[in-house]
């Protein structure tokens, strides 16, 4: 073995706490090392050239670089070495930055640790063999999970590039929360007016297969080759026959039982319903929990009036299998609704605001429905309890957000903006009304956002009070709001007619379960994790699975749309080639020593192990051994640990390589 060792200072990042020249000098004495040097920035062009030069001059066949985390530059150094003629998998990285210089203060002990870490990698690389990347075919189709604005944007971008997209949406219609909004900030565009053309475009697009009222049940496979099982829930309507005439909905007699999910509980909907008039697809759904036919076999009014015989009471959920190459998660958010919470919930409830107790205390989305022309009050500003016009309205920001004690510690980003919007919409409709906003800070960082808030204050006369609200209760039909004005230093009590709570944006309840199905990590709030918050915001740690919109973090519409296009671009990059190169960290069986017990097959999560028959020249069976399909193998190594004879080894992390590291740990 002729090993070259390169120690990077990473400017001050490593150099300040680790004595890099000393490390380099110590490495020069390791057996097998024929070249050792240190440099300020190994990942830079001159740095990489040093490595390439040394490879050529000293005839190196393996390289160890002490630098930042391999998650950062392993690929960089592997490519540099590959360019100079060494197999890229005979290159190892010692994480001297994230795992040493950045977490310690004492130079002597950090330096000692760095030398140890370098020694471990030098010993490991002695057992590295050359490996060739595996090539797998790519299925050039995408799955987009979630039909809100993010999912719609991503689907259109991929479909317009010429590739087929399957868009799965759990609700009967696409559109997401944006379709519930009245107007959008900062332009006050009518939300549905800008959204519905996109929705229709999706529906009519030849390359988009829309599966509404469906959910992703199972995902198997890996980048370029996912096998997805989708559950098409039973609408009880044959969608190929339905024309969307709406007669069945009109005639359904069960009108007042269910609360409309689209109207956030402020109105009722029939058992046979379309969530909103502009729904896409405009095909109704039967809510079997309240439909008379499903309860006692009677009625069937919808079937009687349907001119196309599209009603099908026998319809069952259907499981559909699809093959795709890339998946985009765009499941969006839900708003925190404050009522009694179980003890293990992260939110302890805001009972002091009386939400759920007093009809006139509503959430942000409920206010959108009241303001919306297609809402329960046809856009009239009327309060829920007695349908009177509220003359005094109080908006409370940060309910559940920025609250370490009772809520979430994060900021929900959109509330300052939509509260200003709500206050403005109210003032535009109730000219003599008084609007008050209780705030902690105003976060208006987008384009034209600050100007929008100023407009609410200066042009529309919305009164902003800096302080929190301690209690809301009802007295004589008035909503009494008790808060404080911290700038003036006084208590404030407002006898309002209505209160609107800007509640926290949360991940969807099923998001963790979906993340587990897809095998992607998520944080403690249920938001799906990106690989790197600064530089890789739309990728997850699972190759081929990308993120868009609020499922990752609270986000407004422009950012969600941008992110959706970015995720689509990532998918298109994948579809740009016919074959995908995968890292050759896969398991390999030594057929000579394998006894064919097939324990490895039992523990493989990817069904990558098969039984293989070894025959002699006459076709007689000698023995059965295990065989790993390197296209399917994902490289976890569970088989390696399970094999009693260690006949199956995980290339890149073989037993020898690991023992070498264990043995090399000399001193603290």
């Amino acid at each position: 073995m002729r090993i070259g060792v390169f120690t990077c200072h990473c400017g001050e990042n490593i150099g300040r706490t680790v004595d890099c020249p000393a490390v380099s000098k110590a490495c020069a004495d390791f057996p097998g090392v024929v070249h050792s040097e240190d440099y300020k920035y190994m990942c830079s062009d001159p740095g990489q050239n040093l490595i390439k030069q040394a490879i050529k001059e000293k005839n190196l066949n393996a390289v160890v670089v002490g630098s930042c985390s391999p998650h950062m530059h392993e690929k960089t150094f592997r490519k540099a070495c590959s360019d100079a003629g060494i197999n890229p998998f005979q290159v190892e990285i010692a994480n001297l930055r994230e795992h040493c210089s950045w977490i310690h203060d004492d130079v002597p002990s950090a330096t000692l640790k760095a030398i140890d870490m370098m020694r471990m990698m030098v010993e490991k690389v002695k057992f590295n063999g050359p490996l060739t990347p595996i090539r797998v075919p790519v299925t050039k189709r995408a799955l987009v999970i979630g039909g809100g604005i993010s999912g719609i944007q991503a689907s259109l971008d991929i479909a317009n590039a010429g590739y087929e997209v399957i868009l799965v949406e759990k609700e009967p219609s696409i559109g997401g929360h944006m379709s519930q909004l009245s107007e959008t900030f900062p332009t006050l565009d009518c939300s549905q007016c800008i959204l519905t053309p996109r929705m229709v475009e999706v529906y009519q697009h030849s390359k988009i297969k829309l599966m509404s009222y469906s959910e992703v049940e199972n995902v198997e496979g890996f980048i370029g080759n996912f096998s997805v099982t989708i559950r098409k829930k039973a609408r009880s309507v044959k969608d190929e026959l339905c024309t969307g005439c709406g007669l069945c909905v009109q005639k359904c007699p069960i009108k007042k039982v269910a609360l409309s999910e689209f109207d956030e509980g402020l109105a009722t909907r029939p058992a046979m319903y379309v969530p909103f008039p502009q729904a896409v697809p405009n095909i109704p759904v039967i809510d079997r929990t309240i439909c008379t036919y499903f309860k006692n076999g009677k009625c069937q009014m919808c079937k009687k009036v349907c001119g196309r015989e599209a009603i099908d009471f026998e319809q069952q959920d259907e499981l559909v299998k699809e093959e795709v190459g890339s998946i985009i998660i765009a499941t969006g958010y839900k708003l925190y609704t404050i009522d009694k919470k179980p003890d293990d919930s992260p939110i302890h409830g805001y009972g002091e605001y009386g939400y759920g107790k007093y009809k006139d205390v509503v959430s942000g989305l409920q206010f959108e429905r009241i303001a919306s022309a297609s809402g329960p009050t046809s856009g009239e500003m009327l309060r829920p309890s007695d349908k009177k016009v509220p003359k005094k309205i109080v908006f409370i920001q940060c309910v559940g957000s920025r609250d370490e004690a009772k809520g979430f510690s994060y900021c929900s980003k959109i509330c300052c903006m939509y509260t200003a919007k709500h206050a403005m919409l109210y003032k535009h409709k109730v000219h003599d009304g008084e609007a008050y906003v209780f705030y902690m800070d105003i976060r208006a960082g987008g384009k034209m956002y600050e100007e929008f808030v100023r407009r609410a204050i200066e042009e529309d006369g919305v009164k902003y009070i800096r302080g929190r609200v301690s209690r809301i209760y009802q007295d004589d039909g008035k909503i009494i709001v008790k808060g404080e004005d911290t700038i003036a230093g006084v208590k404030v009590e407002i006898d309002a007619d209505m209160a609107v709570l800007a509640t926290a944006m949360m991940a969807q309840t099923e998001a963790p379960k979906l993340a587990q199905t897809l095998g992607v990590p998520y944080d403690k709030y249920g938001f799906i994790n990106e690989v790197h918050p600064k530089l890789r915001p739309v990728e997850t740690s699972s190759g081929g699975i990308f993120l868009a919109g609020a499922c990752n973090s609270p986000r407004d519409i422009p950012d969600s749309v941008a992110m959706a296009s970015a995720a689509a671009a990532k998918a298109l990059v994948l579809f740009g080639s016919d074959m995908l190169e995968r890292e050759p960290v896969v398991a390999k069986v030594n057929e000579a020593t394998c006894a064919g017990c097939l324990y490895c097959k039992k523990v493989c999560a990817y069904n990558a192990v098969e039984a293989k028959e070894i025959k002699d020249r006459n076709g007689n069976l000698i023995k059965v051994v295990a065989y790993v399909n390197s296209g399917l193998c994902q490289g976890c190594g569970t088989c390696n640990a399970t094999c009693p004879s260690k006949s199956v080894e995980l290339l890149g992390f073989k037993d020898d390589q690991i023992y070498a590291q264990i043995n090399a740990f000399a001193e603290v």
Partner: protein
Amino acid sequence: MEEEKFEPKITAFVCNWCTYTGADLAGTSRLKQQTNARLIRVPCTGRIDPVFIIKAFEKGADGVLVSGCHPGDCHYNTGNFHARRRWIFFKQLLDFVGIDSTRLYFSWVSASEGKKWVDVVNNVINSVRAKGPFLGYKNLNKETELPLVNKN
């Protein structure tokens, strides 16, 4: 006779996707910890053979830490379940063989739990320091005069 304060050696086997990344996050966040641990990266805790742990003790570790993804969150779906099952039997084996099984620690640290990783590492180091050096193999090696670590 030197009065050298005992500093434990901790060998840590960490999975690439969760704990290793969590440790990276601890580094990026500049969260300080003690220097006694050395991390050995594996793709998944499912890769960890119990013999690695025995070897680590044999080669001078005073404590061993194994850390992976939270159950249900394994990047390879089930790797950490297999690991977890292995340890249930392995701990009993360690006790039977006479290796103090309380010197073997497990944790589930996800990629976003940088702070938790620092707490885990520091706690393990402090615990092992309080227990003192693991002498089992050192005594054995003294008897048989086999070198402990191939330092050259």
